[in-house]
């Protein structure tokens, strides 16, 4: 892989009529990452994914997938991309295996002579070998989801785009998908997985992008976001102005006061005990001091102004 970024977009925008579904987002998905694309339903995740895969034409902005411009060089990029988009969709009257064979026949880069073997391996990997000759319409939702993933696994891919891959899966199935994603990531595949479930992203992903109302409002490594999320300083004092001055001089310029309460993001350095010492030394009457742990969930609620389903 030559490009260090698997996906990059600049100002990517999609308007449907007067509605702006995706509003100037700058995605950065490093190669080898498991990138969690998080956001409530309707926040523009799927439209973004459809733009990256060339199904929907951007109104403005540009995107590159595996170093190729999309949609311009789509036919160069897509053979290296496996995708599960907005749920699995296959021909109901055909068996799971026949559906895979059809998609493989459509793939110019796939060798028909190895089709049988590759289908077998993909089905094995998602645990559908026994149900391979059952009709797709008789599959449970979880089996359909897994067959969709199997289709993405028939060929080696550098990038897997999985849109809500655990939708409709039972806890056991969800766990299997998680294992599958991490084993693929270990093989060096970049995974872009969208979800509206925070817990899922937290468990699977190395990087996170948060969508809200068409905008990408946060994008960082998971640990980076956690740091941002966990550390908040809270000082209770009758001298808020004085306290703010001291904190600013120590590099905590983002702190704000509201009545007798001063709050602000808590950096790793200086240590909390040093802050307390400095405050007291400056004559601030400290009546309460706390570094409050804030969960990722709180951070996202704060960022998006709306809740996430937590399963």
């Amino acid at each position, binding site marked *: 892989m030559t490009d260090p970024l698997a996906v990059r977009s600049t100002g990517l925008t999609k308007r449907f009529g007067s509605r702006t579904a995706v509003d100037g987002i700058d995605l950065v998905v490093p190669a080898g990452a498991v990138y969690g694309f998080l956001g409530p339903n309707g926040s523009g995740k799927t439209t973004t994914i*459809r733009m990256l*895969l*060339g*199904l*929907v*034409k951007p109104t403005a902005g540009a995107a590159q997938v595996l170093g190729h411009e999309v949609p311009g060089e*789509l*036919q160069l990029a*897509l*053979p290296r*991309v496996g*995708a599960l*988009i*907005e*749920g699995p*969709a*296959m*021909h*109901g*009257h*055909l068996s799971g295996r*026949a559906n895979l*064979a*059809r*998609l493989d*026949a*459509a*793939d*110019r880069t*796939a060798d*028909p002579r190895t089709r049988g073997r590759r289908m077998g391996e993909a089905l094995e990997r998602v645990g559908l070998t026994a149900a391979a000759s059952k009709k797709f319409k008789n599959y449970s939702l979880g089996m359909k989801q897994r067959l969709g993933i199997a*289709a993405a696994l028939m060929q080696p891919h550098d990038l897997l785009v999985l849109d809500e891959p655990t939708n409709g899966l039972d806890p056991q199935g969800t766990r299997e998908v998680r294992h599958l994603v991490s084993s693929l990531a270990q093989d060096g595949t970049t995974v872009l997985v969208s979800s509206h479930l925070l817990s899922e992203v937290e468990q699977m992903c190395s990087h996170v992008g948060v969508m809200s109302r068409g905008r990408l409002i946060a994008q960082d490594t998971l640990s980076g976001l956690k740091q941002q999320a966990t550390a908040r300083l809270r000082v209770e004092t009758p001298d808020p102005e004085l306290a703010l001055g001291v904190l600013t001089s120590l590099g905590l310029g983002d702190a704000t006061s509201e009545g007798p309460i001063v709050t602000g993001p808590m950096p790793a350095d200086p240590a909390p005990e040093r802050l307390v010492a400095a405050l007291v030394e400056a004559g601030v009457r400290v009546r309460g001091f706390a570094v409050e742990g804030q969960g990722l969930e709180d951070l996202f609620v704060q960022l998006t102004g709306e809740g996430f389903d937590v399963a």
Partner: protein
Amino acid sequence: MWRDLGLLRSELGLMLSRWRNRLGLGVLALVPLMVTIGMYQSSRAGGGPDIVGGLTNGLVVPLTALFAEAVLFLPLAVAMLSGDAIAGEANQGTLRYLLTVPVARTRLLVVKYLSLMIGAVMGVGIVLLVGGILGVAVFGAGETATLSGSRIGFWDSLGRLLLAGAYVSVILWAIAAIGLFFSTLVDQPVAVSIGVMVVVALMGIAQAVPELEWLRPWLLTTRVQSFVDLMRDPIYWTQMRNGVLVALGWMAVFLAAAWARFTSRDITS
């Protein structure tokens, strides 16, 4: 190139895997059976069918069946197939997976149209095949009378029958082009089939309105029956040649429209 054939084969397999399409072929095959029964009974009653006068060549059966089906049943079959082509895939959501395999949109459109063309030939073929077998079995493989009064041998009439099938197929390809365009417009296969049948019905009505006579040369429903000219001696080619040109015109317009629409549209299904 060979792998493109793989997709076309998969497409045809998909078409034939649907029960309603198999049933459709059965319905198409029913008409020559009815024609055979009808002709058998009237020949036993004496006199025989008008154009033949003593039926000794069974190929009159597929020819009559083709004439009967060319205006309604065969266009209906094409209308059904074109509904599945793009709109059906969009409706099931399989379109987004085909396109991200990837299959380039132009390539998919070409394969879809080729399979519609083959589907139309299959429809015509089953009428000719069933009609031919039944006809020859019941009435024999002797000489037959042309519309001009002369008589031609069995092999000559078989050649003319195949030409008639080819001509009807070309007209059906034009209808398939209209269907393919409709199929790129909506996500509901039934809407496409109805749309195509509305166009065919409108052509039929326009054909019957005297004030619209100037429109007649452009109507596929008028053109499709020109293949009876094959049964003149010598064969009268002019109308059929014009019919093929008109069909090519319809194809050019609607395939271009289908291409323009499909390569630029957002796939949100």
